[in-house]
């Protein structure tokens, strides 16, 4: 713990901290560009100069490059240092164009701030400026290269931190250019971070281009609703339109960066088809009427057929408060039919995780520091992209990554891939747990698992990572059991499982002992359950076997839907009540490590101004009501229905009082405690239902999983992300492709019980043999295929028709 003196103030900082951060610790901020907490120091911008008066280092030095040491006496205001900084900022500004008024960075531009802070206010340079030709970098990022001050932050972020390969530095001296070799879409799924990281306006948010100035944005800390990792985000909106999302800073989860799905996947909030008006039997009503109708009809149904005749379907994307109140409603009606996820495999996985995780829980920050990462049935880019970023940071520090998966899992870092068919994953886990390799008769797999065991035993901070789709409830339990096996004084092993939604863990925690959706489907068909209440969920699309679910749901007498997106359930509901999206409300989620996190309201709901009035021009006449502002937070709708407090804090207090395990709800913040359920509370049998394929002649088992873009409902509603959608594809091992007579890149016809469609064939050596793989793509022929299932298919070449 070195102690040094900065500007006559003594400060003691941790070992290894640089002098720039030490100064920041006592609120002395010196202008700097290239240094970033996540990227480290390279001392290239020459702006953080300080005068070192006494101690081991002397003279004017770059503070970011000097580790704090005992006996240092540093001055930030020494004339020599100030003059140097002034000159440096003036040099940086010589080529900078005069276009702040038309630059989207204006208002959050580090260069603007640092120019003023550095004392440069008058351009003395009268010569000509260098100019560049811009590149097209895809639908997310707008480049304006003239503004560049060559701080290298972008290439360090894109290449070093995020592992992108298609972006770099060209040229020399004053011709340095940051970009791709040729125009085109940036390939990294983390390219949006260039917007946050660029200190000036070279890389700006393209969907947000010219929409607002940041000082006009309404912003609030929020949680990303796209996956279960619970990354911190800051949504910003204006004129009732959510216009951008930038990364929040939370060192325990995402750190400084988020993925492109989280950053650009906010389209569901402004979606033109978003239902905003309550309906009863297809007729528009007020929210109060809809609530009264919902209460009365549910009560009437309960009186007629008994409380158990109504089922309540929660959701992984509804807030914890909403799910809690839905359960309270079920309790009041006297129904025990309360489920939180329509997808049975994911439901089981989440419940299994909530019951078994306990102290095995690891955060993304733990993953970043891990020294051995084993992914079993996990595809981070599809299920939780920020995890891929965290794994890369671990690899950069020397960690080893082993992927055991039937899919060709793409990671932005070096890793060892063991392709195994899905049915073997459980056996690998069992073998890991028990050390018995008998079931693994594969000659390749046995030694691989053996080495794996020894590697885990030698590692200090290993993390086992799984995915809900591939493992299911049983797999998650096996994963946790396997991890427990290795716990020792030296080996601090942990587990992370990617679930389906931001509040999967919370929903599973609440419904740990309830029935599952398949049981409900049977009940619908038998007429035991006649009413269904859907809270921000869409059983028509999200069920593991959608066709079966749709047929069963036809038997319902009453369908009530509370949602903020145009789901099928919302369209078909007898009673519909519009709820608010995450950015429009306050609430809390429990992420996949059991961490209870709160989010705040950033914008007010309502029809965006740009969707109103002639030619996007706002109306001249004002009205006392905001058009489309009826949506209320789901917990508020349910709270009114159940006569609960309308104030969130009050509601949280009462809910915490009812459920002692949730007492953290009374003081939720970003570092709130983890929550875990009782391990023995699971009622439903943890079977694994994904294998319904038989490998009779001509049939190929088809594994369906999710893609980075296109399989997730919320991001599917976002138009900029559509550019990243792949065309329908089938992945095959080259040997299987050869057997079927298909070649890489060819088009083929995929026929299953769900229909026929045209797909592109891709082959990869990382695929498991004797298996085809495809992604669910919403709004395409592959829509009906639910991730986490294996069905029979036939593949024929197009010309074979």
């Amino acid at each position: 713990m070195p102690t040094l003196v900065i500007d006559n103030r003594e400060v003691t900082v941790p070992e290894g901290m640089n002098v720039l951060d030490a100064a920041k610790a006592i609120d002395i901020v010196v202008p700097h560009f290239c240094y970033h907490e996540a990227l480290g120091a390279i001392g290239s911008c020459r702006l953080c100069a300080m005068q070192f008066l006494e101690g081991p280092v002397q003279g004017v030095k770059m503070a970011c490059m000097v580790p704090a040491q005992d006996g240092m006496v540093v001055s930030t205001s020494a004339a020599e240092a100030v003059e140097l900084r002034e000159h440096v900022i003036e040099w940086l500004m010589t080529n900078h164009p005069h276009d702040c008024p038309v630059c989207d960075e204006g208002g959050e531009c580090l260069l603007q701030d640092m120019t003023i802070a550095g004392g440069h206010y008058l351009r003395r340079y009268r010569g000509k400026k260098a100019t560049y030709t811009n590149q097209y970098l895809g639908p997310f990022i707008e480049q304006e290269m003239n503004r560049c001050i060559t701080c290298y932050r972008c290439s360090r972020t894109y290449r070093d931190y995020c592992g992108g390969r298609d972006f770099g530095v060209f040229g020399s001296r004053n011709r340095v250019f940051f970009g791709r070799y040729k125009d085109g879409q940036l390939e990294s799924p983390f390219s949006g971070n260039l917007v946050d990281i660029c200190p000036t306006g070279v890389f700006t948010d393209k969907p947000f281009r010219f929409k607002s100035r940041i000082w006009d944005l309404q912003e609030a800390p929020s949680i990303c609703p796209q996956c279960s990792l619970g990354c911190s985000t800051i949504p910003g909106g204006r004129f009732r339109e959510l216009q951008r999302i930038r990364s929040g800073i939370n060192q325990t989860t995402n750190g400084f960066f988020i993925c492109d799905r989280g950053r650009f996947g906010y389209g569901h909030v402004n979606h033109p088809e978003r239902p905003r008006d309550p309906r009863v039997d297809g007729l528009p009503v007020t929210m109060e009427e809809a609530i009264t109708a919902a209460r009365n009809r549910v009560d009437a149904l309960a009186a007629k057929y008994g409380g158990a005749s109504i089922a309540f379907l929660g959701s992984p994307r509804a807030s914890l408060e909403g799910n809690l109140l839905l359960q309270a409603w079920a309790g009041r009606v006297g129904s025990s039919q309360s489920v939180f996820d329509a997808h049975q495999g994911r439901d089981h996985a989440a419940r299994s995780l909530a019951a078994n995780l306990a102290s095995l829980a690891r955060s993304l920050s733990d993953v970043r520091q891990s020294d051995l990462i084993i992914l079993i049935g996990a595809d981070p880019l599809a299920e939780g992209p920020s995890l891929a970023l965290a794994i890369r940071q671990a690899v950069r520090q020397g960690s080893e990554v082993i992927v055991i998966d039937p899919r060709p899992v793409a990671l932005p870092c070096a890793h060892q891939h063991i392709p195994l068919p899905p049915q073997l994953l459980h056996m690998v886990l069992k073998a890991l747990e028990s050390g018995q390799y008998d079931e693994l008769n594969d000659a390749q797999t046995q030694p691989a698992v053996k080495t794996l065991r020894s590697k885990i035993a030698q590692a200090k901070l290993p993390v086992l990572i799984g995915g809900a789709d591939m493992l299911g409830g049983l797999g998650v339990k096996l994963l946790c059991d396997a991890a427990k096996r290795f716990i020792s004084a030296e080996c601090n092993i942990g587990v992370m499982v990617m679930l389906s939604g931001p509040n999967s863990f919370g929903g599973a925690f609440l419904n740990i002992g309830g029935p599952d959706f398949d049981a409900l489907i049977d009940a619908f068909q038998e007429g035991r359950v006649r009413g269904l209440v859907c809270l921000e969920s869409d059983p028509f699309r999200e069920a593991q076997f959608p066709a079966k679910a749709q047929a069963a749901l036809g038997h319902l007498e009453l369908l009530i839907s509370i949602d903020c997106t145009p789901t099928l359930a919302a369209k078909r509901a007898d009673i519909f009540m519009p709820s608010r999206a995450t950015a429009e409300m306050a609430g809390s989620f429990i992420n996949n490590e059991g961490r209870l996190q709160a989010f705040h309201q950033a914008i007010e709901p309502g029809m965006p101004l740009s969707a109103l009035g002639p030619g996007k021009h706002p109306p001249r006449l004002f009205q006392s009501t905001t058009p489309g502002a009826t949506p209320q937070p789901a917990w508020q709708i349910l709270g009114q229905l159940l006569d609960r407090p309308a104030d969130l804090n009050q509601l949280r207090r009462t809910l915490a009082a009812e459920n002692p395990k949730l007492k953290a709800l009374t003081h939720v913040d970003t570092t709130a405690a983890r929550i875990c359920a009782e391990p023995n509370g699971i009622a439903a049998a943890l079977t694994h239902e994904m294998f319904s394929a038989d490998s009779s002649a001509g049939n190929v088992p088809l594994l369906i999983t999710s893609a980075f873009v296109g399989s997730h409902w919320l991001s599917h509603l976002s138009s900029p992300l559509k550019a990243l959608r792949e065309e329908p594809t089938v992945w095959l091992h080259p040997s299987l492709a050869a057997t079927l007579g298909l070649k890489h890149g060819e088009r083929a016809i995929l026929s299953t019980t769900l229909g026929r469609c045209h797909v592109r064939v891709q082959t990869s050596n990382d695929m498991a043999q004797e298996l085809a793989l495809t992604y669910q793509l919403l709004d395409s022929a592959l829509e009906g295929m639910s991730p986490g299932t294996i069905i029979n298919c036939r593949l024929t070449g197009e010309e074979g028709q």
Partner: protein
Amino acid sequence: MTLWRDIKGTLQPFWITLGYLFQKPVTIQYPEVKRTPPPRYRARIVLTRDPDGGERCVACHLCSGACPVDCISMQAAEDADGRRYAAWFRINFSRCIFCGLCAEACPTLAIQMTPDYEICNRDILNLVYEKEDLLIDGCGKDTQYNFYEHAGIGVANERGRNQDEYGPVDPKSLLP
């Protein structure tokens, strides 16, 4: 002597006001008599144009940011040639206090204030001026300035063709 000074100081104003009572008031009888305000008088706001006729306003929101009463609102949009312009621009003159901070903040000299002070109206909606009400056909006080000739983003001229620019760099060249 202070007492004498106090008494004098108390009585003197009486004498002065009595004197004023018989002088002609300086008030200008407004609706009948009108005065011509100086050219820099801060009254009705206009949006001016470039010397070549393009809109000067780039919808940078600096005027609305500077406005202490929040009477300016706008929405930026992009033209086919990359020019940033105001899709709509609205000044609510029933709220405006004519402080001139918007004209001060305007980086492109688009917002300027004119001496036209007679804009009272009984219908408040008539005081909400839209872009077509604000935009004039002229440069206003500065007849030379064209923002896009200095901005360096290739709107008025091609990239690198402005007077203070070199042509675009070829980053792939190996020449020194």
